[in-house]
């Protein structure tokens, strides 16, 4: 079987699952770019480059890093914030996975049942998922490839995602920091962020304002 290239969509009415097309996930120390297995560092560099090239580069942090359910999650959240600041890249959370009534607000959140809405609304052209449960990440990645032209990436704490245009696996705090390091390195080498100016959506609730936060 020839290599099935996982390129940005929109691809067909219902894009195939890359695993069905014979794409195998990378081993530890590897990543994949468009389905081709590469050394992890190469995938990292490409991810950083793609992010800097993007006009609306966006990080989608999921429940595993948004919620402080253990200390590792808190450390990952810190590393993700540092990555976002290094770009700067936009942060849009996937706080949970429910089909939401009556509708999501695509400006401030993304939902795995219709992630394309958030991509369309914000004109996101490159994104990275981190801390999303693998099943929900794969749903999102496929739907995004189906209905948008966004370049998708996945930083997975487990075995990686063949439905992303680029993915690496076993994402630890150190690996998130390594990606930040690559962003900074490329910037130092003169690669300029092409990101449009944006204001990061923030919600500071009243009770926090009162505390002076």
């Amino acid at each position: 079987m020839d290599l099935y290239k996982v390129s940005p969509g929109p691809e067909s009415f219902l894009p195939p699952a890359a695993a069905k097309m014979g794409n195998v996930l990378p081993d530890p120390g590897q990543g994949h770019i468009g389905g081709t297995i590469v050394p992890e560092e190469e995938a990292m560099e490409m991810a950083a480059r793609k992010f800097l090239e993007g006009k609306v580069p966006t990080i989608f942090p999921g429940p595993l890093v948004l919620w402080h359910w253990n200390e590792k999650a808190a450390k990952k959240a810190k590393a993700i914030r540092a990555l976002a600041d290094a770009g700067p890249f936009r942060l849009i959370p996937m706080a949970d996975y429910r089909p939401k009534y009556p509708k999501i607000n695509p400006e401030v959140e993304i939902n795995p049942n219709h992630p394309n809405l958030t991509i369309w609304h914000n004109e996101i052209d490159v994104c990275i998922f981190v801390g999303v449960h693998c099943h929900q990440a794969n749903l999102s990645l496929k739907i995004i490839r189906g209905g948008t032209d966004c370049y998708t990436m996945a930083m997975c704490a487990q075995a990686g995602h063949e439905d992303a245009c680029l993915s690496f696996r076993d994402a630890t705090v150190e690996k998130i920091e390594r990606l930040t390091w690559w962003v900074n390195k490329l910037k130092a080498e003169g690669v300029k962020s092409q990101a449009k100016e944006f204001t990061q959506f923030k919600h500071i609730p009243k009770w926090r304002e009162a505390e002076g936060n």
Partner: protein
Amino acid sequence: MNKKVIPEDRKIISSTHVKIGQKNQKDQVHTEPNEFFYGVERITKFFTGSEVIQSAIKVSHCDVMVAYPITPQSEAAALIGELFADGYIGDYFRGESEFAVMGQCAGAAFGGARVFTTTAGPGTLRAMENFPMWAGSRLPIQVCVTCRGVNSPLSIQPDTLEMSYLLETGMLIWHAETAQDLYDFILKGFIVAEQPDVHVPIAVCCDGFFVTHTKDTVDILPDDVCLPPYDPYKSPVPCMDMECPPVRMMRDPFIMKSNYIHYATHASWQQEIHAAVERSRKHTIPFLDGLIDIENGDRDILIIGSGTAVSQSREAIRLLELEGIKVGLIKIKTIRPFPHEEVREALKNAKTVFVPEFNIVGWLAREIKAIVPDNDKIIAGPHVAGGMTMPSEVIVVEVKTALGLNVEKIKM
């Protein structure tokens, strides 16, 4: 294909667990899977298939087993109860029907447990609604299916028809030929099914009575080791124990009631289940030493099969060889994922291919015919059903008849 997965790797990656090296409640040491399967010295036993199932579960560090009596798995299910009485299993009880049992297994798996159960024939069909639910919910439950007849009039005898009903449930389906296969498939099945990128249920099937109720030599692991525990927090979906995020979490909501492109969500969900089955190849090929075994695959005449049909074919091949007819053998170990590439490649140069099966419909032959370009060379048969044995002579006659050779009447 972006990379070739080869059997020679003989290892499974990323099965780390903090408890590896520590002892469980029965002082069994949680052993890293590669060490467990390839390092630890085994002991040879002469066991029935039921005892083999019990021995495998004894070293599997299983959290929950739910039992229900139906021939021919009742003995195995009861023997596992003895393991529970001895403290090897977290919990064990008899459910009220296979439909309920598979629900109880699902409940335990939703709660993050390693779950095992056994069923057969009508039990498999009564439970059927649960299997696509298990797969859709990404529950890595293992069910050992000891195949028997399903249709009226009632038969408790071996027949592999029920496997055909399981084919498109989204489960992994492995078919054991021997007691040794059964032992290894059960233990390796847990590890493959629980991989975060796979994480779907697995049916380890064997032919009822022929495997469950006959004695065979089998190399088993000593009692002082066991598999590493299952880690539900590596699951591709949240574990339902209120110990992990998100706290607002339903398993599994009706995406059809979402307001937007819900059909695409459901379609993508289904794709993801079948993709997960595909991903299991990467772990299964090195772990089972390939999805198929080939003996003398360069011959013009090949027999291809799964389960005990392979054993009968092996003897038939010996008999044919005595008459100067050389026949090769291909054994299929995994029915899902189906070894398309492997089978296509193996049958490429064959002139005639026989598919003996212990069922009347010949579902395995259909699977093979669907993927081979010159499929008029595939001869579906011989078939036996309803508990009939498949004497090797029957296969011999099938082969000789197809070759246009004189066939003596079989003396009764």
